[in-house]
């Protein structure tokens, strides 16, 4: 996870590589050409002394050596003599009186105008060659006792002669050789003293100022010297803001030695001497995915310090990232399932994660803070995935439930429809063998189960009772109410009396069973088959048409009353009309008169009269009804019927 996060911080570095705006550091590289010209490495210390003098002549601010010299120089005259047993003994004695190369190098160091800083490498184990602590420049600590500043038990440095001459040391450590260099120890304890990184110590030696390390808040260390300031993590290491490798930082050792560098190249610069020859050095990989000589890492640290560029990761950052995770997760859990479309949910996710990433970039570039939006985003993305899968499953389940519900409801409505249709009598069976009258009826239900019905039956030998009715409203309530009204009407009719009284009686009963406050229009008739006298009562229903042989259809006069269940205790009057033999009567519901064509016109009463007038003389009721139904259908011209269509025709043939 750490590596993953570090990789993400590398990504920041790659987006915003630090431009090189100032050049406080010059690197003297001991590289291929210098080795070719001046001999193989390690050079005799006399040559190093020459190099120091050559650089010092350019009046640098300070010189730092990113090299250490732990062993005595084997080219010192005495050592050379020891390696050549055949030479004369006075020669040996003479050579022994000559100063060692190390002494010459030490002298070059101590007599240089600019301070010279030697590199030391902090080691986890004590090295017997370097039992004594190296001399350090003064460091003051303020409020840092609780900080876990890195301490090395031992170190590898240079010969005591050289150390004593330089008096100043800087840490050469710049991270493990194989990994990408992101953090490097800026301050660490070695033995009894505290040391800054080589670059920083060289800069400070040049400025000749004390160094203060204090609690910088947020678990960070603040390092001040002169007007320079750096920020380190609690352990003394610091994140480096990297820029690209730049050849302008470099001159070669050879050029420096033979005076081929431009005048003033070293003037007031921090000069770092390092080995950059390919065969011998430690190359580092930076977050910018470049190989840099280790010495250039130190140079970049100095550039960071001089330019006031810091990069740090305060202790609170992991908590900020956790908060990001919680916030994003909360957003996703609460709002993604409520988003009206998948695209809004996705926009929320992209927006949330995008904001976190943008915040990370802004904090990096403008505040030098390392904030990792990646882990919270991945976490929140995981939450999003879970929520998405959950809400998909939920909506799938809801869809299935709806489908099942719809199917069940459709099944129930179908059943209601079948039951409703089953309640209607078939006049052909009811009046089979009845010659005095012919009756035909039809009920075409609309798509939704409706509340039309008709009924017809004999009361005794002479009286034919019929009724056509329409319950206001649709659906199951209307269908159930219709069944109740039909049975109440039948029982009211069978109790005898005038037709109006039958309706009044039925209304009294129905009112008790009408929680939905539905009402029913009804036309009821009672035909005396012996005399052709028709008693009828109308409860708010469309009056029927009658047509005598060779006459025109005429609407029956319509005294009567309101629909059943509209006005309590209304007493329905009975009217009388006498049929002539061969005369027929046709009762319809508003499924006929209010049938609508695509132009939203009604079939209407007049059209009904006209249609009935066109029916051939002597057509039996069954044909009459079929023709009328066809006329209504033709008029509707494919428009869906809004209501049930009920037609009942009755023809009195005479006694």
């Amino acid at each position: 996870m750490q590596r993953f996060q570090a990789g993400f911080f590398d990504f920041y570095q790659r987006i915003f590589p630090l431009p090189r705006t100032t050049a406080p550091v010059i690197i003297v590289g001991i590289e291929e050409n210098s080795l070719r010209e001046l001999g193989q490495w390690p050079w005799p210390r006399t040559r190093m002394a020459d190099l120091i003098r050559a650089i010092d002549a350019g009046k640098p601010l300070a010189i730092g050596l990113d090299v250490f010299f732990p062993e005595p120089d084997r080219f010192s005259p005495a050592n050379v003599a020891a390696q050549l047993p055949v030479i004369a003994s006075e020669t040996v004695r003479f050579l022994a009186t000559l100063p060692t190369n190390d002494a010459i190098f030490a002298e070059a160091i101590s007599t240089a105008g600019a301070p010279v800083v030697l590199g030391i490498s902090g080691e986890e184990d004590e090295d017997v060659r370097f039992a004594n602590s190296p001399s350090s420049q003064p460091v003051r600590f303020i409020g840092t006792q609780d900080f876990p500043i890195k301490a090395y038990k031992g170190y590898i440095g240079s010969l005591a002669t050289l150390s004593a001459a330089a008096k100043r040391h800087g840490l050469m450590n710049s991270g493990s050789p194989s990994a990408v260099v992101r953090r490097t120890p800026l301050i660490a304890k070695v033995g009894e003293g505290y040391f800054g990184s080589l670059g920083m110590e060289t800069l400070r030696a040049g400025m000749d100022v004390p160094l203060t390390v204090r609690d910088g808040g947020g678990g960070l260390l603040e390092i001040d010297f002169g007007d320079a300031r750096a920020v380190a993590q609690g352990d003394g290491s610091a994140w480096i803001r990297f820029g690209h490798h730049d050849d302008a930082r470099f001159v070669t050792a050879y050029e420096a030695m033979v005076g081929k560098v431009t005048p003033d190249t070293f003037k007031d610069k921090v000069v770092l001497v390092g080995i950059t020859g390919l065969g011998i050095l430690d190359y580092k990989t930076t977050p910018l995915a470049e190989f840099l000589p280790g010495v250039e890492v130190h140079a970049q640290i100095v550039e960071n310090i001089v330019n006031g560029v810091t990069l740090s990761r305060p202790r609170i950052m992991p908590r900020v990232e956790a908060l990001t995770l919680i916030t994003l997760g909360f957003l996703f859990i609460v709002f993604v399932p409520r988003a009206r479309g998948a695209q809004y949910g996705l926009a929320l996710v992209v927006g949330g994660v995008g904001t976190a990433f943008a915040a990370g970039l802004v904090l990096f570039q403008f505040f030098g803070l390392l904030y990792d939006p990646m882990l919270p985003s991945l976490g929140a993305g995981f939450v999003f995935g879970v929520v998405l899968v959950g809400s998909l499953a939920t909506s799938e389940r809801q869809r299935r439930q709806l489908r099942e519900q719809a199917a069940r409801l459709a099944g129930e409505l179908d059943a209601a429809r079948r039951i409703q249709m089953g309640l209607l009598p078939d006049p052909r069976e009811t009046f089979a063998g009845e010659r005095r009258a012919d009756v035909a009826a039809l009920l075409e239900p609309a798509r939704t189960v409706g509340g039309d019905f008709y009924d017809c039956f004999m009361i005794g030998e002479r009286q034919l009772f019929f009724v056509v009715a329409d319950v206001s409203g649709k659906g199951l309530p209307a269908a159930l109410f219709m069944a109740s009204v039909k049975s109440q009407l039948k029982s009211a009719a069978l109790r005898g009396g005038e037709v109006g009284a039958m309706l009044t009686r039925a209304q009294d009963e129905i009112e008790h069973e009408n929680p939905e406050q539905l009402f029913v229009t009804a036309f009821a008739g009672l035909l005396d088959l012996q005399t052709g006298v028709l008693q009828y009562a109308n409860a708010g229903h469309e009056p029927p048409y009658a047509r005598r042989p060779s006459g025109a259809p005429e609407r029956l006069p319509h005294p009567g009353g309101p629909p059943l269940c509209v006005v309590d205790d209304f007493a329905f009057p009975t009217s009388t009309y006498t049929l002539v033999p061969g005369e027929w009567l046709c009762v319809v519901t508003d499924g006929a008169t209010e049938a609508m064509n695509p132009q939203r016109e009604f079939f209407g009463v007049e059209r009904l009269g006209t249609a009935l007038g066109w029916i051939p003389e002597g057509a039996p009721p069954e044909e009459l009804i079929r023709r009328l139904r066809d006329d209504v259908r033709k008029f509707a011209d494919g428009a869906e019927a809004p209501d049930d269509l009920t037609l009942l025709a009755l023809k009195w043939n005479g006694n």
Partner: protein
Amino acid sequence: MTVTPRRYANAVVLSVAGRLDQDTCDDFRVELMKHVEQTARDGGAIVLDLEGLEYVSSAGLRCFMLASRQAKTQHGRIVVASLQSMVAEIFEISHFNLVFQVFPAVREALAATSADALAAFEKK
């Protein structure tokens, strides 16, 4: 369907236009009930001006009936005026004059329900 209220003293004239059927019934009743209590308290009436009403289905009639019953429980009075021929015929066949008093025009309806309202109507 649209319902436009106009107030004359203690009476409210609601102009109903369009079609009254199953789909528009609830809107109509909500609008009507806003005024029932007020006019009942002021001793006035609600006049339904049906000049713009093209058509009433049986569900629409039931809507009228329910409105009338609801108004009655609140001691409100509703009358109708200016019925178009088609609506007038529906009212006639279904004898809804037993449910609402029917007037040929809004003026007559106001005259029959409240002198104040008529005065206000005449002034405008």
